[in-house]
């Protein structure tokens, strides 16, 4: 017998199961000093304690039983849960665009196993069609799951694989790409792909969900439909992030990959374009460009794939009294690039200067962004700024720290020539630097102000 019959149980609770000769999925009657309980033993989550046994009672609820109260357990039956997601063949419709959905591991669509509560990802076209059949009215979808990692584990090597895979699809003549992705680092990946995939003839749309699709109120299905429409039908051939506009189920935004950021830990409308406006709004039936200038869709299959990344780079988020050894340790550990998120217009305190000087002298490329996120670095205004520049720190205008990180890694993957690195950093790609900040690029209104209250009462946030 394998330990599998005691799935997740350990220590004392495992001993109890063994003592009474019962197992996970066994239907049991338990006698305790709190009375009798009936149900099916469920697997226990690995991190939970070893003082309880979880059972599903006949009404469908789960309860835990304190092992110290147990006097007897009898197994009266056994039935193992085994659930497979229903599949339906994704219908092919002539005349609809062909879109490739590339999975990275985030569960855009999923279903629940009601017995275990486990979320089973729906990914194959058949499963997807089962979960979101409306997709079949928008485009023909094929899928490719290139890895299964959580958003936070996405990194440079995944960016490279992804960029190459997308390049291949484009060369094969696909009409649009969707990348399903967890939301936490969606904007890091979007930046990296913007650098690695250039002059794409088709839209490359990254999409995720803030509420998993096992909830009736999930944003997953609508986001997916929006993404499918953007990939298949829109004229905007760029790397875009497609997520909810307002938190209501109304419309989505298409954001430029380098200008977008996750701005709330849990809201549906968490992704915002910073320092500019989104490229477009999107519904299931329509793309409405908000910006007049974007790369148009083309009929050729030409794309530049530049799949390089050096991950010896770091973002340093400055705080008052930061000690120079933070910088020193990066230098000593062989880091090639540092992106500082400085205060205000791009500042750090004086004690850091020698360390920064040492860094640039040693060939580490140091760039300055702003932790205010909105606005430009401006290092001529105060002496501190000028001093820093004299030490070799290069301000990168209004590039977001995450975009700067992705860009620096991408550049250092290609060259370590300081001049070239600097030149490339300061050459805008995909609006990572914009020379003009429109007046409506910064909109964080404060609640409580009567006219703001009036506005949010009328329009959904």
């Amino acid at each position: 017998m394998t330990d599998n019959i005691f799935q997740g149980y350990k220590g004392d609770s495992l001993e109890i199961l063994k003592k009474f000769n019962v197992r996970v999925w066994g239907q049991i009657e338990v006698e305790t000093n709190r009375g009798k309980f009936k149900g099916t033993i469920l697997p226990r989550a690995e991190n939970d304690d070893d003082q309880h046994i979880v059972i599903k009672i006949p009404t469908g609820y789960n309860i835990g039983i304190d092992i110290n109260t147990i006097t007897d357990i009898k197994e009266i039956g056994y039935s193992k849960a085994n659930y497979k997601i229903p599949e339906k063949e994704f219908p092919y419709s002539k005349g609809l665009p062909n879109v490739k959905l590339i999975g990275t591991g985030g569960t855009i669509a999923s279903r629940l196993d009601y017995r275990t509560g486990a979320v089973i990802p729906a990914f194959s076209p058949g499963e997807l069609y089962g979960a979101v059949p409306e997709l079949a009215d928008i485009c023909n979808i094929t899928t490719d799951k290139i890895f299964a990692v959580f958003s936070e584990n996405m990194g440079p090597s995944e960016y490279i694989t992804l960029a190459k895979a997308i390049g291949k699809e484009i060369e094969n003549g696909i009409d649009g790409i969707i990348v399903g992705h967890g939301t936490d680092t969606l904007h890091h990946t979007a930046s990296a792909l913007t650098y690695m995939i250039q002059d794409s003839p088709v839209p490359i749309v990254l999409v995720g969900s803030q509420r998993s699709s096992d909830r009736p109120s999930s944003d997953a299905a609508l986001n997916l439909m929006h993404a499918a429409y953007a990939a298949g039908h829109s004229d905007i051939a760029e790397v875009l992030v497609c997520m909810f506009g307002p938190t209501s189920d109304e419309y989505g935004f298409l954001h430029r990959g380098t200008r977008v950021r996750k701005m709330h830990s849990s809201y549906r409308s968490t992704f915002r374009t910073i320092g500019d406006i989104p490229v477009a709004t999107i519904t299931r039936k329509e793309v409405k460009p908000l910006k007049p200038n974007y790369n148009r869709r083309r009929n050729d299959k030409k794309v530049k794939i530049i799949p390089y990344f050096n991950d010896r780079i770091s973002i340093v988020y400055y705080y008052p009294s930061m000690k120079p050894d933070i910088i020193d340790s990066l230098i000593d550990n062989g880091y090639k690039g540092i992106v500082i998120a400085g205060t205000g217009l791009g500042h750090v305190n004086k004690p850091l200067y020698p360390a920064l000087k040492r860094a640039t002298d040693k060939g580490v490329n140091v760039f300055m962004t702003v932790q205010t996120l909105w606005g430009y670095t401006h290092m001529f205004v105060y002496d501190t700024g000028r001093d820093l520049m004299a030490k070799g720190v290069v301000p990168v205008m209004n590039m977001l720290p995450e975009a700067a990180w992705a860009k620096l890694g991408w550049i250092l993957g290609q060259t370590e020539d300081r001049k070239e690195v600097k030149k490339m950093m300061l050459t805008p790609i995909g609006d990572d630097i914009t020379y003009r900040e429109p007046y409506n690029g910064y909109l964080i209104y404060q609640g409580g102000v009567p006219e703001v209250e009036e506005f949010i009462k009328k329009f959904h946030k």
Partner: protein
Amino acid sequence: MNKVFDPQINYEESKKAIGYVPLKEATQKDYDRIGFKAGLEVHQQLKSKRKLFCYCPAGLYHDDDNFNAEIVRHMRPTLSELGEYDGTALMELKTKKEIIYRINNDNACTYEIDDTPPFQMDSEALEIALEIAILSKMNVVGEVHIARKQYLDGSIPTGFQRTAILGVEGEIQLKHKKVRLIQLSIEEDACREISDIGHTRVYKTDRLGMPLIETVTYPDFVNPEEVKEGANYIRFLNRSTGKVRTGMGTAREDVNVSCRGGTRVEIKGVSHNNWIPRLTHNEAFRQWTLLRIKKILNQRVKNIEKWKINFEHIKANVNFSTYEPLQIARQNKHDVIAINLPEFKGILSHFTQPDKIFADEISNRLKVIACLEKPNMIHSEQFTLNINLSEFNKIADILNAKGNDAQLIIWGPKEDMKTALETIEERCQMAFERVPNETRKSFENGTTIFERVLPGADRMYPDTDSAAISLDDNYINKLSKNLPVDVYKRIEQLKNWNVPEDSYNYILKRNLMLTIEKIILDLKIDSKFVGTFFGHTLKWVEGKFCPYDDFIYEKIYDLFKYLKQNKIELNIAKKMLPELYQHGQLNFDSILKNLKFKKKTRQEIFKVIPSLRKKFQKIKMSKNSNADINWIIGQLRNNALGNISLKDLKTEIENK
């Protein structure tokens, strides 16, 4: 043979045929005949300071139009909800409702609208719920696991309710039997509906997330009165803790009813226990009726798989030109469709509930599922005569109907017609097979209408956002030691105290036992007097006057203590109570002063009896032998109250 068909007569005859008896005349025999069975799900809000899973204050409500923002959501069935589905079924997901949530910053945060994950469960609420679980003789769980229970109607923005079992297998002791309890859970309350018109349903989120417990009984009740007794018992038990909310909508019952051969139908949200007998009575008979309809239809139609409706679009300006809703439909460019229901003659006007017919079952589903506002149909067995029924003959011709068929006409927006037709066909097909599983909405007159299809069993899954909560023995034992007395023991006590039975409900409902007991034991006042004072006098005062803001029942203890200390006869308390109730800020001296009370000795009161007797001889208006005594008591009553008992006064008058 072919006499003229009269729907009204058909209604009466069908009512008779199923043996419908009005509630008042029904006996246990009637309920045994139809196999009446019922169970309860009793919901009770807990008196906690905050909501169950967030830090919003609990119990703060607002008007419908007092909101800061609105959020729109659409509920989407997760895969399993549809079981074996096909894609288009999901796409055409019938009731396409847009749900709007109104949010007021005072009582809702981003948790309520599912933009923030849950915070830890409120420990105050959990503790109250556990006390009630122990009081309900439940087996308390060792670890609380929070589950998600799906609700697709939009009443909860997440699409599910967070809920957890605290205990299983309890019992309550009613007058004649024990009723078994299945389980007790703690859960978050749902939104309050503001409106539901067409494809838009509006909710407010003030009540959403308030802590609630649900006590579920086995279907052990065998007649409507017993269901009410059970509902009352559980309500009294909850209130005996003094830690639950009282007032409008704070306690609601879902009543599950079936008859033999019927099915579990859930009557939702009954907030008045007095409604329960009529509602359960009617529902059991409605199911009994549907079984008769099933029998009739199966006799008429042999091959039920082939049964289906046929329909034609018609022009309302040709037919039923005087019927206003149809005229309006035409003006709105709505579709008007005539439908033939083969072999349904006499079914549409078949009795289902008092003043309800089978056609209502269809109409109510059209409203809920196809979003057609009422009136949404007319039919060939209509009672009301503002349409010309003979017009249906022409319609029957258009539809190639046969003599034993029935016809309907529906109207509404083009895009809703497909769902409407499916809904009609589906409901009629069900009539051949079974009593549909439904949740139904209740009305004061004891009738119910279709609310939703009863959700399937598989709609529960663990809440991955919450950790389990361990309940160790020390904690449970501590709670067990500090519980109120069992309700059935309290009833026993009231009986022993000779308190009139008609005051039990009032006393238990308001959780007055502790106060009453304290008065009886501390002040050594006659128990029957005290019980009656609360059960009759206080009840009367409460029904008649408006209370002072700070009035609490414990003030009655102070009242009696004051009277005892000042050696004032207790019978004046009845006169003082309305003053105390309305003007709680007054002290007892002032109340007595307002009542013009003067302390008098027995002799002072008695000494005027002879002169009063003389006076009565002069004005004597009644020949009744006791007339003089009663008149004199009347004259001395005000003087006597607070000084001597009326009984003593009477004895004195009789003996002098």
